[in-house]
């Protein structure tokens, strides 16, 4: 099923609602790359709280999303990785490398606020 993408001020939030097939994940990647342009967003949050499995494909696709969004000029934060999912990822040797993560939606938004505020201060 398609992941709903909501606009919240200068950010967009992709809130995953159920288990995703590979095609769903690739659709999310393409949708987000389009959406940041349409809304001129400064940041993207991908909420993976409901995912009970993040396998190699899911992790690889989330990395690709973050790198694509960065090339589009915005920041991505992955929020809500569950403790048991984090453990399975470590056991499998899967990493998100330089992709920013946060505990939950609230922390993710706070991170983006700090990032964009710092960016704005730097321009002055």
């Amino acid at each position: 099923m398609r992941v709903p993408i909501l606009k919240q001020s200068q950010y967009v939030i992709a809130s995953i609602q159920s288990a995703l097939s590979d095609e769903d994940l690739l659709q999310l990647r393409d949708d987000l790359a389009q959406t940041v342009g349409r809304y001129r967003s400064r940041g993207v949050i991908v909420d993976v709280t409901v995912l009970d499995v993040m396998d190699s494909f899911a992790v690889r696709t989330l990395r690709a999303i973050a790198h694509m969004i960065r090339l589009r000029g915005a920041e991505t934060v992955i929020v809500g990785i569950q403790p048991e999912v984090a453990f399975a990822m470590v056991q499998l040797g899967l990493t998100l490398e330089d992709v920013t993560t946060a505990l939950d939606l609230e922390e993710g938004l706070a991170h983006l606020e700090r990032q964009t505020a710092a960016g704005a201060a730097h321009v002055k």
Partner: protein
Amino acid sequence: MSSNRAPRRDEPGVVEEPAIAISSSGDIVIARQRGRALAAGLGFSGSDLTLIATAISELARNIIEYATTGEVILGQAGKNGRPGIVIVARDEGPGIGDVAKALSAGYSTGQGLGLGLPGVRRLMDEFEIDSEPGHGTTVTVRKWLR
């Protein structure tokens, strides 16, 4: 070359569910959800359920990527009075030429053959593989209730 013993369908004490055909990414989701449900019924805890579902996902993914089609067979087993789950992932794809290399440790995909088999091995308690070039691959993994 094959390593370890070939998995037997007639393993004593193993109760198998009908095979789940794997030929699309949707089948990967179905296989791991059925595996999670079976493991939950056997009494596995939340973190073990995630490890089991993730292992099934990776094994089913290897089938799609390297053999295109195959099957996953879930079953329950017992060992020393402890119940467990047994997962057999079978395909008739190209097989693995160097099983030892495919199993060689290394957390990154830069090492080994990048099949993720060492990772799957770490997620489960027991791991067996039977593979021969041209004759497909069968991976059998088990996890016992703690």
